């Protein structure tokens, strides 16, 4: 594929290992520790960084305060904050900025203490943001889980999708989590009951949180963080690890529209842009790192990314197709995903990290010879307003 761009590559990654820092670290400290480890992974230093990308979880004036906190005076500052997909946007923008000659080494970081701060992300009351859309919706008590559950209900209604099909996604990610010592430790630290591989029956017999979503179809709420270093080809050539090339990017938004179809997400807009730029199709992906906030998120995104037609996701995932050792389909969330390894609120950075590990041959559920991966982040809420960020990656 000679037309494929090789403008920028992921050269360093780090996933912060703990999911429960017990109040001993702040989100900013997790970001700094992760930055140091990702730069070391790349064989680079802080002095090499000339561009920072930040979703603003460390507080206001994100571009300024994170630069000062790290001790950087970057030439490029990007504070795109669009929820859990922010890091796919950051990777896209880093590629664009590096290709334009504005930067050579980009640093993306994330830190969160959602677990130790006891944030009720999934079933908590929604804070009023002052945005007019919230002023219309907040009286109804739509929890985040219910927001996604309404997509699942409609998907079932329109296409005949079943809970047992949705459960395939949770069993595949748990299958991978049990092979990942960090994920197993995470489940122990977060006091999961009965930590083991799960069956379809286990998932559909777990308690209902918001119909039709069961407990085991909902992601964990952990502490955590990570960092990704993206560099120009000139820098990447001399880094410690083989480069993982960013070959396609796409961005999109979706929000409630009168008469709109809730079963189609913003990915239907971002994926064609990303795969089109990369000159490859979803069917060629060895690895599918797809934001698994809930089972229905993955099912919807698999369809919108083009792994199967709209409405056929239920049939598509059956038979353990998403497991890393099943060549019939892409390997889904081989780290264990947000469902069973790591979800501190904005999981997007881990999609890039595990995709890079796979393309370097470093995953705990390694797909032999993996050469192409897609990382797709969903930010905000699938059942109402959300963002999509699609990144297509290729091994060296």
């Amino acid at each position, binding site marked *: 594929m000679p037309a494929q761009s090789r403008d920028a590559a992921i050269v360093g990654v780090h996933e912060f290992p703990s999911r429960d820092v017990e109040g001993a670290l702040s989100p900013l400290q997790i970001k700094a520790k992760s930055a140091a480890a990702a730069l070391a992974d790349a064989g680079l230093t802080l002095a090499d960084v000339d561009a920072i990308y930040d979703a603003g979880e460390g507080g206001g004036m994100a571009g300024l305060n994170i630069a000062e906190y790290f001790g950087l005076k970057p030439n490029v500052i990007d504070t795109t904050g669009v929820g859990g997909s922010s890091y796919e946007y950051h990777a896209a923008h880093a590629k664009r900025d590096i290709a334009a000659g504005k930067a050579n080494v980009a640093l993306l970081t994330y830190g969160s203490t959602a677990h130790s701060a006891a944030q009720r992300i999934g079933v908590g009351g929604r804070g009023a943001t002052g945005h007019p859309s919230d002023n219309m919706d907040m009286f109804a008590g739509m*929890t985040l889980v219910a927001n996604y559950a309404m997509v699942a209900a409609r998907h079932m209604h329109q296409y005949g999708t079943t809970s047992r099909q949705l459960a395939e996604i949770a069993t595949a990610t748990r299958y991978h989590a049990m092979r990942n010592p960090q994920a197993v430790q995470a489940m122990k630290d977060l006091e999961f009951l009965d930590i083991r591989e799960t069956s379809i029956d286990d998932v559909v017999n777990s308690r209902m949180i918001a119909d039709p979503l069961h407990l085991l179809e909902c992601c964990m709420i952990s502490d955590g963080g990570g960092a990704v270093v993206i560099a120009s080809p000139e820098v990447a050539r001399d880094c410690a690890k083989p480069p993982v090339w960013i070959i396609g990017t796409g961005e999109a938004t979706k929000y409630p529209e009168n008469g709109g179809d*809730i079963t189609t997400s913003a990915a239907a807009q971002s994926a064609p842009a990303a795969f089109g730029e990369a000159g490859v199709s979803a069917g060629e992906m060895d690895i599918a790192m797809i934001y698994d906030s809930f089972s229905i998120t993955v099912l919807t995104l698999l369809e919108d990314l083009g792994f199967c037609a709209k409405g056929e996701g239920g049939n598509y995932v059956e038979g353990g197709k998403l497991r890393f050792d099943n060549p019939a389909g892409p390997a889904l969330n081989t780290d264990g995903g947000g469902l069973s390894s790591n979800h501190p609120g904005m999981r997007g950075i881990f999609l890039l990290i595990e995709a890079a590990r796979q393309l370097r041959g470093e995953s705990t559920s390694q797909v032999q010879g993996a050469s192409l991966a897609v990382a797709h982040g969903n930010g905000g809420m699938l059942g109402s307003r959300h963002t999509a960020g699609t990144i297509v990656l290729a091994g060296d």
Partner: protein
Amino acid sequence: MTEAKKDTRPAPSRPLPNLNELDTAPFWKATGEGKLTYPVCNDCGTVVFYPRAHCTSCLSDNLDWREACGRGTVYTFSIVRQSYHPFFRGIAPYAVAWIDLEEGPRLASNVIEIDPDNIEIGMPVELVWEPHEDLSVPLFKPAT
């Protein structure tokens, strides 16, 4: 065994919209008069919802408010069984839904006066007001 103390705290109440939010204030003020309203663009006919002071098709600010009849259908719904919000925890399980009004607006609400397990997508529903001090909250029940 200690004697149970009487709980003198006020009962938890439904979170209510802010009447000073400028885009949606006309909608909420009209609910106080028992009117379910929505803006329509006079230039291109677009139904704008959630309500805004401009058209989401052409950015025109030439909009009029119209009154909806209060009939609609359940586009999709979920039964919430777990909530940490004190009010919603108290009424769980309850149904949240996206309701498609006959005139086009789609709004988030609750479906009430029915066992949530009997709610179906596509079910016809009608407006029922839950009155509060300065406004009313539009909820929906199965159509009669």
